[in-house]
Every structure is written in C-alpha cells, then in structure tokens.
C-alpha cells in the first residue's frame, strides 16, 4: 500500500493516476500533470509560493500529500484566466506592477483569490494580514497590496453589474 490510485479534479478536469503515497501534492501538480505554474520556494510551508486552492481553501501544496487530494477540487494559477482574458486578480498584478521576478506571484494570486472570496472589500491591513503567509523576496509588497485592492474593486464592480 505504498502506492494508491487517486483522482484529483484540477481546474475542473479529473486526473486519475497511481501515485506513491509519499508524493507531495505540489510534485503531483508539477511533475505528474506538468503544470509548472505552481512554484516550490522554501519547501517548508513558510513562503507560500506553492499556494493552491483545495476545495476552495488556500493551502500550501508542499505540505499536503497528493493522496490527501483524492476526490477533491484543486485550483491552480493555470485555472484562473478565462481563455485569453485575465482573472481580475491577474489583471491587478499586471496593472499595478504587482510582480518583479514573478516567483511568488502564483502563490500570491491564489491566496488573494480566497481572501477576496471571503472578504470582498478588505482594508489594507486585512490584505497585509491576509498575505502574511506569502513571501516576496523582491519585497514588492506595496504593489502586491495595490494589485489586490485593484482586483477587489474590479470584482465588486463586476458583481454589481452582473
């Protein structure tokens, strides 16, 4: 029983694979599914680069086993855009220069996705606490906060007109 067949729904598509029980979810996503948008930074659940949504909750995929995601919904950065159209959070990072080297960006965006889902109009302080589990080594936090504020505004306008 050191391997197990699992089915994980990634960005809406089910993927069934026989995996080693010790395989980490981040490696399943990157190596088994070839979706390399999710990054591995510290590998110790500190930096947040590997953040994805598991059943809608932001989690650090370097500290979850792939077998734990069996039967669950995973959303990665690849699942955010609608075709060629950016998700409002991606647009925010683009418009507000929310990235420099870009390494932390997928994790920041996935964390911001749950943050805005729970709190559509966060204060600056709530955003800063909300991304406290994500490190940007370019120290570009000012613009990351602005990017999330941009997205919050855009998403509430869209929600109103919808």
């Amino acid at each position: 029983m050191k391997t197990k067949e699992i089915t994980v729904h990634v960005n809406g598509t089910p993927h069934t694979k026989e995996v080693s029980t010790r395989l980490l979810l981040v490696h399943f996503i990157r190596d088994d599914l070839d979706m390399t948008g999710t990054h591995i930074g510290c590998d110790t659940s500190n930096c947040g680069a590997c953040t994805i949504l598991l059943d809608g909750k932001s989690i650090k995929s370097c500290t979850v086993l792939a077998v734990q995601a069996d039967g669950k919904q995973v959303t990665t950065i690849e699942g955010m855009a609608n075709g060629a159209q950016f998700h409002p959070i991606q647009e925010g990072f683009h418009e507000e220069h929310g990235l420099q080297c870009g390494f932390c960006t997928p994790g920041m965006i996935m964390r911001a996705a749950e943050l805005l889902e729970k709190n559509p109009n966060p204060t600056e302080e709530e955003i800063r606490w909300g991304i406290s589990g994500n490190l940007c080594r370019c120290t570009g936090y000012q613009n990351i906060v602005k990017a999330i504020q941009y997205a919050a505004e855009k998403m509430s306008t869209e929600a109103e007109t919808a």
Partner: protein
Amino acid sequence: MIPPAFDYHAPQTLEEALSLLDEYGDDAKILSGGHSLIPMMKLRLAQPEHIVDINALTELEYIREENGVIYIGGLTREVALEESDIIHARLPLVSEVLPLIADPQVRNLATIGGNLAHGDPGNDHPAVMLALGATIVAQGPEGKRSIHINDFFEDFYMTALEPEEILTEIQIPVPPQGSGGSYKKLERKVGDYAVAGVAAQVTVDGSGACTSAGLALTNVHYIPFKVTDGEDVLVGSKLDKEAIEKAAGIASEQCDPSNDLRGSVEYKRAMVLELTRRALRDAANQARG
C-alpha cells in the same frame, strides 16, 4: 524534500481509525492538519511506517456550548475557530491567539487537536489551554477518558496520549463574569514560533480581588509551562502592580528557555518578564470591565 515511504490509511469512521491505531500502535502516526508531521517526515525526524489520515472524520469538527462548557472537536481547523462567534464571545483568550498561529494557509488545515497532541512547547494553544484549565478527551480501544490539561504535557514532545488513542475533544469551561484573558507573543516574523509567549486568564470578584488565575508560557521550557507559583501570588491579590511584578518575576525565573536562534537565555527571560506584565495587565483590565 520528500518524506520516507509509508503505508497510507484513510479510515472513514472513528471506529476504523481506532482499530488501525490498535493494530499498528507505535508504528503509526495520525495525520490531521499535517503541518507538523509532514515537515518532520521530510526532515526524517519522524519516519512512521503507517500514516492514519483522519481528515475524513468530520464528526470531530465542531464547536458548541453546553452548560457553561465549550466543546471543540479534535479535528476542528484553526480557521473554523477564527470564524466562530462562540469563540469570540466566550473565549477572548483563544480568539486572541488564533491569528498569531502560523499563517492563513496553514490555519486552513491545521487543527487544534493536532496542535495540542504534538506536544511541542513552541505551539501556542498549549499555554492558552493551561491558562483556561481545559480538559482533553482521548478515545482509545477501551473507550474514552478525560485528561486534565495540567497532566497532559509530560515531556519534550510527549503527552499523556497513548499511541492507540485519538484526541477527540477539548473541553473549556466558560470563564465566569468578571474574567479577562490575554496572550502576548513575541515573534521574529509573522507566523514564526514564539521567542516567548505568555497566556494569562484571571477572574475578579466585586471587590476587585482575584479569585482565580491561569498563567502559562510558550517556548521557554521543555514543555508548555504552567506558572503555578505565579498563579498562587495572583489569587487573593487585587492584581495590582506589586502582585503582577511578583508573578512576572516568578515566571521569568522559573522558566528554563534554551539559547538558540531566537535568542539567548537572558534575553528570553527578560521577554517573559515583560510579556507576563503586559498579559496580566490586559487580562486584569478586561476582568474589571
């Protein structure tokens, strides 16, 4: 880093989980939030042959109040506690510690039961539970038993839990009118383990005299440290400057921190002294209303 190989079990009922633990005993580790266990496995500090993943046991995720006691299921996530009106209204001390534990992603998975069962003196819940006088319920092959929190932390990373037992519930008495609590944590960065942490919980009567006190420390001793002698000084006092100074002095002297990356022994004692003053002052002000 990839953890060493193990056999993976995902029981769907508590009974099934208990029978697996009964079968594998010491060779098995329970996986709940996994944010202590998986990092330890990556570093080969833990190499269990069997992993019993209890995340499907959603019957262990609850927060409810009954007859003056808050009952919390062992598998309750930190985020559920953070979002609970009962916790905010009834246990301000717990509500204060929650945002200081790790970070939002970790709190989405991490559980209060895991935080306590891991027996890590650096975790924040243990000191809070010592200050509140909680009771731990463990279920094993022979049924349930209750363990008072004062008897729970036995040694470095060792608790009173047997390998065959699951921590199923935490029971916290609702503090009476005239109570206040505060947790003070000094950390190098958000989400880090404490350089030092102090949990204080006090109750005062109509005259302002302290009728009960809980005082406990995080990460400055080989186990979560209950400062019994400091509590004794506080009870019966008016929680005035003198009593608080005395209790803080006892906390700082009696704890036994180690010299590490988070600071020297001398520095940590100095921080315990100041954090204890602040925690007690805030708890006393809250209690006086």
